């Protein structure tokens, strides 16, 4: 069994409990004193930081949601002045504004440690060549994995996402032993290698750390067989820190949550009540060590349960089951979070279209996810010329792509052909079947 930091990862339960109590008290005070949003939430219910003396008091604290980020866009949730923030990342918001997160120098160091644990749990050492095919940029995946691999001392190939044939070429020429990317991209790499006549099973590649989107056990089997590797699930979200929130060990029995840095709870999404271990509900995180962006009881909208049984690997950190669904309508397309409301707000701005649309997400075998947006044309836009329709199609496509950050196929359809259901229309068709078979 592999460890990066056995002392921390196998910390005795008593010690971990004491550490968490102390860190939580510190974090609550830090958040309350430096983030007006938290102070307001506490004052509204007459809560004082001194009422929190440990993890047992956690449920007294109100929840934090993505709306809080939107209302405090861009930097209002930060608890330190900007001269202490050394990095900013961002992820999709529910509407036009993205969710912005910040890091102090120490936060970056913590993040690197957590990603070192993640990569270390799959046996990554300084002798490895890490092909990091997560996107570099505002997305946390690329730089998160990069810093973790560098901390271990491995040789990082910061190839970022895309250019699949080149990925195979480099994997072959450099002898990459570790791969970091989304699970669907791992499938695509396998298919592309086959088309190129390359059998990845004969290459030095040994292990892959796959995350940023939901996947299934059957996908794991397929990836492991076609690439001849171990495929480990990693989990994270930028609001909490990015990748490195939880990570699988070689038991492949669900990601271990880094409990010395985060407190996980599972709640009933309707009542907010905390559920006992083993019950499925919404995952909620509280950060314990973050300086720039302390989070108190942040609702992830991810559905899962915590595995009460200890893992055979010896880590004392609790495991979560792989994500089993969402409490909202967020889609994850090629690792990018997409809210139907983002698409709707773009379409509302374009006056030539009817407010009727349909989002169709699909994944051909061995190919990347496709995002199609079907839009009904209005009688006013239809003329005798195809050109004006093509112009409209192009306009919608480019505005959606700029808002979502991924490529989109827009399809103009005849009016009244998108089903109107009573009340809330069915706007999303996801043909990928991501949460079944897990």
């Amino acid at each position, binding site marked *: 069994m592999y460890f990066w930091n056995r002392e921390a990862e196998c910390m005795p339960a008593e010690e971990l409990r004491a550490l968490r109590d102390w860190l939580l008290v510190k974090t609550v005070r830090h958040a309350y004193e430096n983030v007006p949003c938290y102070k307001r939430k506490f004052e509204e219910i007459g809560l004082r930081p001194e009422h929190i003396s440990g993890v047992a008091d956690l449920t007294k604290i109100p929840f934090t949601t993505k709306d809080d980020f939107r209302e405090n866009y861009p930097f209002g949730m930060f608890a330190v002045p900007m001269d202490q923030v050394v990095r900013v990342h961002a992820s999709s918001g529910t509407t036009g504004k993205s969710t912005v997160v910040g890091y102090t120098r120490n936060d970056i160091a913590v993040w690197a440690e957590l990603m070192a644990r993640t990569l270390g749990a799959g046996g990554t050492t300084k002798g490895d060549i890490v092909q990091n095919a997560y996107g570099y940029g505002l997305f946390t995946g690329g730089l998160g994995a990069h810093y973790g691999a560098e901390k271990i001392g491995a040789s990082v190939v910061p190839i970022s996402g895309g250019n699949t044939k080149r990925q195979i070429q480099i994997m072959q020429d450099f002898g990459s032993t570790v791969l970091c990317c989304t699970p669907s991209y791992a499938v695509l790499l396998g298919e592309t290698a086959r088309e190129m006549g390359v059998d990845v099973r004969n290459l030095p590649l040994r292990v892959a750390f796959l995350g940023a989107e939901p996947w299934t056990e059957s996908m794991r089997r397929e990836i492991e067989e076609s690439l001849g590797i171990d495929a480990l699930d990693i989990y994270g979200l930028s609001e909490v820190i990015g990748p490195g929130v939880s990570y699988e060990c070689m038991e492949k029995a669900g990601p271990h949550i880094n409990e010395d840095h985060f407190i996980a709870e599972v709640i009933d999404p309707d009542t907010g009540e905390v559920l006992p271990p083993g019950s499925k509900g919404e995952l909620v995180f509280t950060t314990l060590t973050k300086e720039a962006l302390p989070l108190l009881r942040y609702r992830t909208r991810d559905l899962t349960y915590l595995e009460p049984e200890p893992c055979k690997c010896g880590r004392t950190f609790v495991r979560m089951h792989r994500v089993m669904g969402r409490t909202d309508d967020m889609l994850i397309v090629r690792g990018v979070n997409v809210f139907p409301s983002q698409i709707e707000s773009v379409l509302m701005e374009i006056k030539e279209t009817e407010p009727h649309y349909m989002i169709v997400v699909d994944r051909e075998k061995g190919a990347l996810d496709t995002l199609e947006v079907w839009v009904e044309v209005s009688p006013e836009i239809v003329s*005798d010329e195809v050109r004006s329709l093509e112009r409209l199609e192009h306009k919608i496509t480019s505005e959606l792509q700029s808002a979502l950050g991924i490529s989109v196929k827009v399809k103009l359809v005849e009016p009244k052909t998108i089903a109107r259901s009573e009340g809330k229309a069915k706007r999303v068709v996801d043909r990928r079947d991501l949460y079944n078979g897990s």
Partner: protein
Amino acid sequence: MGVKQLSVFLENKSGRLADVTRTLAQANINIRALSIADTIDYGLLRLIVNDPDAARKALADAGFTVALTEVLAIEVPDKPGGLANIIDILAKENINIEYMYAFVGRSGEHAIVIFRIERADDAIPILREKGVRILTGEELQSL
């Protein structure tokens, strides 16, 4: 100065064209000329019919998206070079042709071609000056 043309937005799926022709048949509309401009996902069906207003209503009632535009119906001598002469006139004046297609009927010794051109108001007097005959809607219907 032109004839009315219907344009119908159609998704590329089987049976859609049949739906249009059936709707027109039931409304007792006669199709005199048609052309289709298509892309991967959809097409525009352009129609000249004997009663454009009735056809438009019938199609709209059946749920189709229909636009009415004016196009020119031009007599073209039915002999080699007949069309070339007309297009030359437009080219010399730098008037672009958006699209054109043939009409089913004939006018004496002439074929009839439907033109959609830029700057039609400029083009009409120039064409007439050169002896080109442009048919009105009534003339077209009486053929």
